[in-house]
C-alpha cells in the first residue's frame, strides 16, 4: 500500500450528523451494469487500488467493535435506510448479488449470474431466470427458497406497503417460482440494471404480509442469511450481533460477533480507537485518523471513492421565479465565464497542498467505475482566465479588484462580477475547498459570496422549495457520486427532460444543461445489455459535458475507515458498505 500514508475519506468527517443516504439507492449502490460487466477481461489487471488485508491465517473467535456515529433508523432496507443502518444490515442480510471491490457483479444467494450466454437472460431481454444456491438456511434454520425472492418482490413493489424502493421494481410483470431453487422474473421492458434487482432478500416466514411491511417486527429484529445475527438493539447505544451458526460458508464467520456502538462525537470515537475499545471507526476524519496513527493504535485504509466534489454552475437565470432552462444565467450562461473559472481554480493546490494528497485528481464525473471515460484535462492558467473574462466583457475598470460588466449582453454596465457559492454546513473539508476556490477566483477578479446551507435545505425536495431544484443559485459546491450501475442516475442528472419543474419535481438536471443529443446517448446506453455500447455512449456524454462545462470536477474523495491493528481479513470497497465482507474478518487474540 504505497498510498497508505494518505488519509481516508473525508466527506463523512461530520460527526453525529445524518449523512443520510438511503436504500432508495441501494439497488443502484450494489450494481455494476449490464451483462458484460462481470467479464473479467474488461477490468484492468493492474495493482488493486483498494486496500485488502492479507494477514493470516485467521484466528477464529473474538468480538470486534464497530463505531457508528448515529443510531440506525431501520434494519429493513426495503423501507428505506440511512447509510449508517446499511452498515449493520449488510452484516445480517444478503441479496442475490453483490459487487466485488472492482465494482464487478458477483453472485450472492444466486448460484450464478444470469446472462445471455448461459440462457439466464432471454433473447428478447425481458425474462431473467435466477438459479439459487442450494441448501442455504436462514439464521433461524429455515431453508431459503425461491418463495422468499417472490415475497421480497411482493413487499418491495408497492409504495403502499411502505416500500421505499417500489419504482425499482416497476418494470417487473411477474416473479414465478417453478421450483424452490429457480426464480423467473418477467419484465415489461429491458432493465439495464437487472443484475441489481435483488440486492436484499427478506424471509417470507419471519416477516409478515407484504402490505403490512411498514409494521413488521422484522424491521427492528431481522432474520437473515448473512454471517451475523442481531442479538440486542439498545436504541442510540449499541447493536450487538453474534455469529450465524447456519451461515452458508463452512468455518465462517471467524468472529463470534460484532458490536456496533453508537458514539456520536468524533473525538470520543477517536479516543476509543486509541484506547483499544474500537476496531473500526467508520469514515474517520483526517485529523482523527492522524491521531490514531500517531498513537500506533490503527491505520486508515482506503479505496478510491465514488464521491466527486464538483462546482455546479446554474446555466439559467436564478431568482426569476422560473425554474426553466431559459433565459440563460446573466453571468454563468456564457461558456467563456465557466471556462475562465476552470482555468482560475488551482486544483493542484487544493488537492496536493490543502488536502495533502489524500484525494484523487479527476476531470470528469464519468471517469469513475467501469466507464472510466477519459476527457480533455482542465488546466490551471489564471492569465488565460483573465484574458477570457476580458473578452467576455468583464473588466475591472474602477480598480476595486472586482470585474464589472462592460457591454455584456443582458447585463447592465457596471454590474460587478459577483456570484453566490453554496455548499452544505458542517463539513470542514468542503469549507476548505470553498475557501481556496474563493481565493483563486478573487485573484482573477471574480467575487464570490460563500453561504453554506443546511443539509436538509440543499438536498431538499421540490415541495420543500430547495433552491437547487428551483434554480435559485449561482454555484453549488458539493460531492456526489454515481454507483456501479449508474444508468438511471445519469439519466436523472443530465437528460434534457430532467430539468426540475412543477411537472418534473424529481428531475436532477439542476444545472439546466439542455442538449437533445445528450438525451439520446443516455437513452441508447440504457437500452443495451452490451457493456461496450453503453460505455461508448456514456463517454460521448462525458465529452459533451467537458465541452459545455455544466459542472467542474475538483477532486475525487477516497472511501475508507480507520481499522485497529488487531482486526484483519477486511477489504475496503467503495461499491459496498464496510461490513460487506464481515464473514472474513478476524481479530488477533490476546
Amino acid at each position, binding site marked *: 500500500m504505497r498510498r497508505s500514508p494518505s488519509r481516508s475519506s473525508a466527506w463523512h468527517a461530520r460527526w453525529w450528523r445524518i449523512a443520510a443516504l438511503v436504500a432508495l439507492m441501494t439497488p443502484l449502490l450494489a450494481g455494476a451494469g449490464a451483462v458484460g460487466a462481470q467479464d473479467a477481461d474488461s477490468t484492468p489487471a493492474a495493482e488493486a487500488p483498494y486496500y485488502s488485508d492479507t494477514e493470516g491465517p485467521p484466528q477464529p473467535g473474538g468480538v470486534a467493535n464497530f463505531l457508528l456515529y448515529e443510531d440506525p433508523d431501520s434494519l429493513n432496507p426495503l423501507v428505506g435506510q440511512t447509510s449508517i443502518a446499511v452498515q449493520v444490515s449488510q452484516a445480517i442480510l444478503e441479496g442475490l448479488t453483490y459487487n466485488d471491490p472492482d465494482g464487478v457483479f458477483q453472485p450472492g444467494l444466486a448460484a450464478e449470474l444470469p446472462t445471455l450466454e448461459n440462457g439466464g437472460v432471454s433473447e428478447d431481454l425481458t425474462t431473467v431466470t435466477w438459479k439459487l444456491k442450494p441448501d442455504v438456511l436462514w439464521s433461524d434454520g429455515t431453508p431459503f427458497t425461491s418463495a422468499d425472492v417472490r415475497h421480497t418482490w411482493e413487499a418491495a413493489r408497492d409504495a403502499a406497503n411502505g416500500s421505499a424502493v417500489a419504482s425499482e421494481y416497476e418494470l417487473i410483470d411477474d416473479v414465478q417460482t417453478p421450483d424452490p431453487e429457480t426464480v423467473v422474473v418477467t419484465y415489461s421492458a429491458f432493465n439495464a440494471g437487472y443484475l441489481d434487482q435483488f440486492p436484499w432478500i427478506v424471509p417470507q416466514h419471519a416477516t409478515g404480509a407484504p402490505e403490512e411491511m411498514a409494521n413488521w417486527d422484522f424491521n427492528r429484529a431481522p432474520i437473515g442469511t448473512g454471517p451475523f445475527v442481531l442479538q440486542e438493539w439498545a436504541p442510540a447505544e449499541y447493536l450487538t450481533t453474534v455469529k450465524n451458526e447456519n451461515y452458508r460458508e463452512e468455518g465462517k464467520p471467524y468472529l463470534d460477533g460484532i458490536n456496533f456502538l453508537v458514539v456520536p462525537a*468524533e*473525538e470520543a470515537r477517536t479516543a476509543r480507537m486509541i484506547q483499544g475499545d474500537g476496531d473500526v471507526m467508520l469514515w474517520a*476524519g*483526517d*485529523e*482523527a485518523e*492522524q*491521531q490514531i496513527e500517531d498513537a500506533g493504535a490503527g491505520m486508515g485504509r482506503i479505496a478510491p471513492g465514488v464521491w466527486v466534489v464538483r462546482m455546479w454552475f446554474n446555466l439559467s437565470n436564478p431568482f426569476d421565479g422560473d425554474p426553466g432552462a431559459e433565459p440563460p444565467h446573466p453571468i454563468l450562461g456564457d461558456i467563456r465565464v465557466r471556462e475562465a473559472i476552470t482555468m482560475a481554480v488551482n486544483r493542484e*493546490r487544493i488537492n496536493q*497542498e*490543502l488536502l495533502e494528497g489524500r484525494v484523487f485528481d479527476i476531470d470528469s464525473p464519468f471517469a469513475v467505475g467501469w466507464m472510466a471515460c477519459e476527457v480533455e484535462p482542465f488546466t490551471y492558467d489564471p492569465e488565460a482566465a483573465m484574458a477570457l473574462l476580458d473578452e467576455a466583457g468583464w473588466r475591472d475598470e474602477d480598480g476595486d479588484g472586482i470585474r464589472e460588466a462592460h457591454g455584456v449582453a443582458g447585463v447592465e454596465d457596471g454590474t460587478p462580477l459577483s456570484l453566490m457559492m453554496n455548499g452544505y*454546513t*458542517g463539513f*470542514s473539508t468542503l*469549507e*476548505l475547498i470553498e*475557501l*481556496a476556490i*474563493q*481565493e483563486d477566483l478573487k485573484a482573477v477578479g471574480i467575487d464570490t*459570496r*460563500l*453561504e*453554506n446551507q*443546511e443539509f436538509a*435545505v440543499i438536498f431538499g425536495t421540490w415541495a420543500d422549495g430547495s433552491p437547487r431544484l428551483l434554480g435559485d443559485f449561482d454555484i453549488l459546491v458539493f460531492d456526489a457520486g454515481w454507483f456501479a450501475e449508474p444508468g438511471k442516475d445519469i439519466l436523472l442528472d443530465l437528460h434534457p427532460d430532467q430539468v426540475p419543474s412543477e411537472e418534473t419535481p424529481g428531475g436532477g438536471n439542476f444545472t439546466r444543461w439542455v442538449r437533445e443529443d445528450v438525451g439520446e446517448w443516455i437513452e441508447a446506453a440504457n437500452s443495451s445489455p452490451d457493456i461496450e455500447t453503453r460505455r461508448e455512449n456514456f463517454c460521448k456524454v462525458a465529452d459533451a459535458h467537458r465541452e459545455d462545462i455544466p459542472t467542474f470536477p475538483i477532486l475525487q474523495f477516497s472511501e475508507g475507515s480507520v481499522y485497529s491493528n488487531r482486526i484483519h481479513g477486511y477489504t475496503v470497497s467503495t461499491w459496498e458498505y464496510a461490513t460487506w465482507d464481515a464473514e472474513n474478518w478476524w481479530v488477533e487474540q490476546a
Partner: protein
Amino acid sequence: MLDLVVRRFMRHKLAVAGLVVLAVLILSAILAPVITMDPDALSVSERKQGPSLWHPFGTDEAGRDIFARTLHGGRISLTIGLAATLVALAIGTALGAAAGYFGGVLDALLMRLTDAFLCFPQLFVLIVLGTLINATALRFLQGSIVPIAVVIGVLSWMGLARLVRATFLSLKEKEFVEAARAAGGSNARIMLRHVLPGAVGPIVVQASLLVAASIITESGLSYLGYGVQPPTATWGNLLRDAQPHMQQLPVFAIAPGLMIFLTVISINFVGDGLRDALDPYGRR
C-alpha cells in the same frame, strides 16, 4: 449617588480586574484590522504551524493566522453578545415592567406570552429567520450577524421580564410609590422615576449575565453549524474548527476557548461588582 456606586465598585477587586480585561478585549477587537493581518487570507505553505513571531497563535489548516482570526472573531462574538442583550433588555424590561406595574389582565396576558416564548425551539427560529431573510427584501442581511443576534435576543428576554415583573410587583406596594401616586404622578413617571431605579440593580446584573450567555449561545450554535457562516471568524466557529486539532495544535484550540472564557468571566465579575455597588442594602 453615582459617585458612591463607582467607589463601591472600585472596591470589588475582581470586578475591576474584569473591567480591565474586558476593556483590553474590546480594544483588541476594535483594533483588530489595524494590528493583525487579513483573517481570511489562505496560505497553504504555512498550514498548521505552531506559534511564531509572525503568527503568535500559529496557523490553522488553511494556513490562516489564528491570532488575526481570534481578534476578528472577537469583534463578531462581542457584537452579537451585546446586540442580543440589547434586544432582550428592551423587550424584557418593557414587558416585565408593564406586567408588574399594571397587573391584572395585562399581567396575565404578558406572562402567558412569556410562557409561549419559552416553548419555541431556538434552532428552528434561527433556521426560519435565515430563510425569511433570504426570501425577502432583507436579503442584504444574508450571512450577516443580524439574524443570529436577533434570534438570541428574542428568545432570551423571558427571564429578565420575570425578574423585572417581580421587582415591580414588590416595589409598587412600597410607601414611596404610594406617596408618589398620592402626589398625582403619572404612571409612566412613577415607573421611570420611582420604580425602575429600584430594579436597576437586578436588571444590570441580569443583562451582564445575558451578554455572557449570548456569547456562549453563539459559540454553541456556531459549533453546531447554525451560527454565523464561515469563513467569517467568530469564537464559536474557531472553536469548532479547532476541535479536531486539540492534541496537535493546542494553541489553536485554546485561543478561542480562552477568549470566550475570559470574556464571560470578566463580564460575570463586572456584573457581580455592579450588583454589589448598586445594592441599596450593601454594607460597604
